[in-house]
């Protein structure tokens, strides 16, 4: 299935449903957000994603369920590319928070977990420094999915906010998964360097 075919299918489905046209990704956007073994650079995103508001466009692609799921995931992960030196409360930061909020806490499907993991990973990269972000992530240390717990530990490490140390230690005490314990250990080790 080519990128052009994917784009056409989006349009046909939306039209058939009589909905407001979704943010149908262009062929170039599909190519940009479907690479197998690389992530798009900021230059590539700025060249091939419809502008001028790249963040709004990526957010629209990320949040529209009619868009191919692989495209959604990569759009989420691409949002931090548009962070300036300080990303706190900027549109990419707000968009990432919106992605995390869009995942119902009751949805434990594989795709929901993958979307949540993408949002958590992106929030770690945003590195806003805000306590609210740490507080948003900490509950995910108790998520049923060990992939989510491990991703959360990594994101808290990436945020480099030492307020995460206490909840990470607390989780470590009763964490059963070796994968997550190792992720928490690595996070605690790196957070010690963040002061």
């Amino acid at each position, binding site marked *: *299935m*080519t*990128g*052009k*075919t*994917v784009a056409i299918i989006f349009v046909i489905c939306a039209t058939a449903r009589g909905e407001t046209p979704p943010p149908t990704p262009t062929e170039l956007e*599909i*190519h*940009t*957000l*479907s*690479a*197998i*073994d*690389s*992530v*798009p650079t900021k*230059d*590539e995103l700025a*060249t*091939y994603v419809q502008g001028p508001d790249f963040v709004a466009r990526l957010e629209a692609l990320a949040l529209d369920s009619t868009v*191919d*799921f*692989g495209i959604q*995931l*990569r759009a*989420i*992960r691409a949002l931090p590319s548009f962070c300036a030196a300080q990303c706190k409360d900027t549109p990419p930061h707000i968009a990432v928070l919106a992605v995390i909020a869009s995942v119902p806490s009751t949805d434990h*499907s*594989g*795709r929901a*977990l*993958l979307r949540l*993991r*993408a949002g958590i*990973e*992106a929030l770690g990269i945003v590195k806003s420094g805000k306590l609210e972000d740490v507080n948003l992530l900490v509950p995910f240390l108790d998520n049923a*999915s*060990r*992939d989510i717990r*491990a*991703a959360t530990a*990594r994101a808290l490490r990436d945020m480099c906010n030492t307020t995460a140390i206490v909840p990470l230690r607390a989780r470590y005490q009763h964490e059963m*998964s*070796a*994968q997550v*314990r*190792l*992720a928490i250990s*690595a996070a605690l080790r790196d957070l010690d360097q963040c002061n």
Partner: protein
Amino acid sequence: MRYRTLSSLILIALVAGCPGGGGGVGDTCKSQSDCDSSLQCAAGTCVPKCARAPECGDGYSCDDDGICHLAVGQSGDACTSEVDCAPGLSCRIDGAAVGDSGFLLASCTAQNTGRPPGSTCDIDMDCRNGTCALGHCTDLCDNTRDCGNGNSCMEIPRVDPIANGALFNGCLPSQGNITWSIPVSGPSWPILLPVPSAAHSASLVFAVDDLAQQVGAQSLVSPGGQTLYTRPCEVADSTCDPARDFYSNLVRHQPELGQSVLSIPSTPSAQLETGAYRLMAASYRPNGTPGSAIPHVTAVVRIDAAVILDLHFYFLDLDDHPCASAFGDARLDASAAQTKTFFQNDFIGYLRTIFAHGGIALGSIDYTDVVDHPDLDGLDVVDAGSLLALGKSAVGVNVFFVRTLSPVGLQAFGPNPGPAGIGGTRQSGIVIGIDTLCYRSWTQLARVTAHELARYMGLHHNVELATDSNNVHWRDQIADSDDSENNLMFFSEFGGIDLSNGQREIMTRSGVLR
């Protein structure tokens, strides 16, 4: 040893008895006509005809008719093959002098106490017959009959500083990979890579102990003098376009942190040449300035064509996976993968179909669980080296299935090209993220896997998303591979499985095949 070979043949013959005329094995004889046509008369006894000179013993040749002949070359006599020199002597290259035929001159010289042909060596004196080439003791030869079983006579460049790439004829394995280490004594060091006439591909694996430094080639020049590769400039400015430099090289290569691979050829339009390739191996700081680490360089030369690809599947802990519905809501591990239809038919079956397009057949497939590395179950690509180093198989490709791959959205990861023929390095395999199965099928994952395997084997993306200053997309160096989405090497997951003839040619030269 070789004396004993002929003596044994004669002893067997004597025990078997000696009837007259048309004699069988062991019969006495005065001439060839006394023996059956399938035998030869050697030292007064009918013995089996020879196929290779080593069957006759040291100091003998084997002619077209399968008859052993005692060599007459004495110490100091000119020779072109090991079989020219009398027992106890070996045919050795004299120095840098080249004869009318264009090949290095040699003469009969007393054997030393070194290792027999085929043994590994670092210098000539390591070898009984005095010639070390491609890291192995090598006999000089005129034709393949002069060589032991499994070896062929081929042109070999001599890469010592005196001979400087001049050719001689020597015996090397007729098929498979020849692997050896090339000594390097400084952070930037000139290397001569010998490529024999029967080679189909050659590669160099550069590694440094300091993983914070980059390592690779600075330049590469063919035996004919063509510059095939120059290290791309570092920082884009009015005089430097790193992407243009990278994509315009005939051999595509980039020094990387810890380890990198350079593979020749990258395109049918710059075929592999017989002779010594000249290159500079070097380490670099992350900012591109000269490094301090001394590169370890391993060479792999592929002899003959091969079409069989072995795969070694490794399964990290995939228990309780969010995408488990794609594998029957059960545990996917080495055991399950060998029996489940989705893996055997949908995944491996489609891999077979894809590689059949490339003229390659899947060979043996083995399955291993990786149970003691929970830190790598969910892999961040920056840690990929730790995982790939677990890939011990040198033949074929190691394929690791991990729970998740970060950054999210990345479906596969691996070196381009990979260190074909070498296991246990930080690039010895590819990684496939099983989280892709939350939104793609097994057949789609098979295409992703085939794409990454082909990169490991030396193909590059047929076209890249990035463009040059004229807005033309960068592409591979293979003339007949178009920029179609239908190509296996199209960078997007929404691509096809087509391969051009040129792509097939490069892929089937890979040292991963057998």
